[in-house]
């Protein structure tokens, strides 16, 4: 019998993988991929909770998250392309203009 816990743990594992990616990757594109993983991990959690509590709000949230992911990609990739055009690289270490 698969319980809510199973799903949540899975969601947790996926989230951690996402974190590893976020921390590890220096390539901006890869970083975007990792954030997608994070979002998806959360989505699973929401969907699972929604099911086990019999409340559809979780699904709705997932739905919104997907919407957000979509807009993020649109804007983020736009910026990325712009930056690549300007600097010729999408490596994170080249982006240090906010140095305090």
């Amino acid at each position, binding site marked *: 019998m698969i319980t809510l816990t*199973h799903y949540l743990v899975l969601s947790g594992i996926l989230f951690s993988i996402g974190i590893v990616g976020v921390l590890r990757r220096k390539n901006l594109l890869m970083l975007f991929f990792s954030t997608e993983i994070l979002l998806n991990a959360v989505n699973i959690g929401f969907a699972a909770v929604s099911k086990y509590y019999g409340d559809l709000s979780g699904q709705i949230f997932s739905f919104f998250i997907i919407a957000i992911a979509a807009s993020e990609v649109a804007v983020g990739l736009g910026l990325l392309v712009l930056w690549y055009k300007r600097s010729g690289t999408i490596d994170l270490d080249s982006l240090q203009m906010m140095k305090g």
Partner: protein
Amino acid sequence: MFEAIAFYMFSILVIGMFLIVVFSKNALYSMSALAGGMIFISGFFFLLDADFLGVVQIIVYTGAIMAVYAFGMMFFDTTRDVKENIRFKKIIYTLSTLSAIFVIFILLAPVYSGKIEALYPSIQGVGNIQMIGLILFTKYLVPFELAAIMLLAAMISGIVLVKIKMEETPTDIEVAKGEK
């Protein structure tokens, strides 16, 4: 039983895919693995009786988002391996492990307190998609509209950011770059 087999299978697949995303050196592989992972995740949604969500997952993620990525990658040089200067490996892995342990610890902790009540309980006998529609266009109407506006704005900004001056063709720009 079937559910268990499906769950574990999908779990292994998704984890595997995502690990490839995180650790692969080739951007193309990563992206492919991500797309795969997305599709497998929709499997969970179907398992969880969230049919609509599952469909949206496939359509939006795999269909739209990954397509955008793919287009985006055309701008970059993706055939070469990604060179990354990864420092502080120990810190990265300690932090990741710690957060993983904590997250899982929290999620493992008993949450079935029974006090939680469904705010919008799903009504038996009504299909999932109908239910979603009902809730989305009643309780969550305003957020929904806002999400629409947000998407529109994101679309426009994406276009504006990437747009090449209309009077110039991409080749012109390449030529101009080459001359420099």
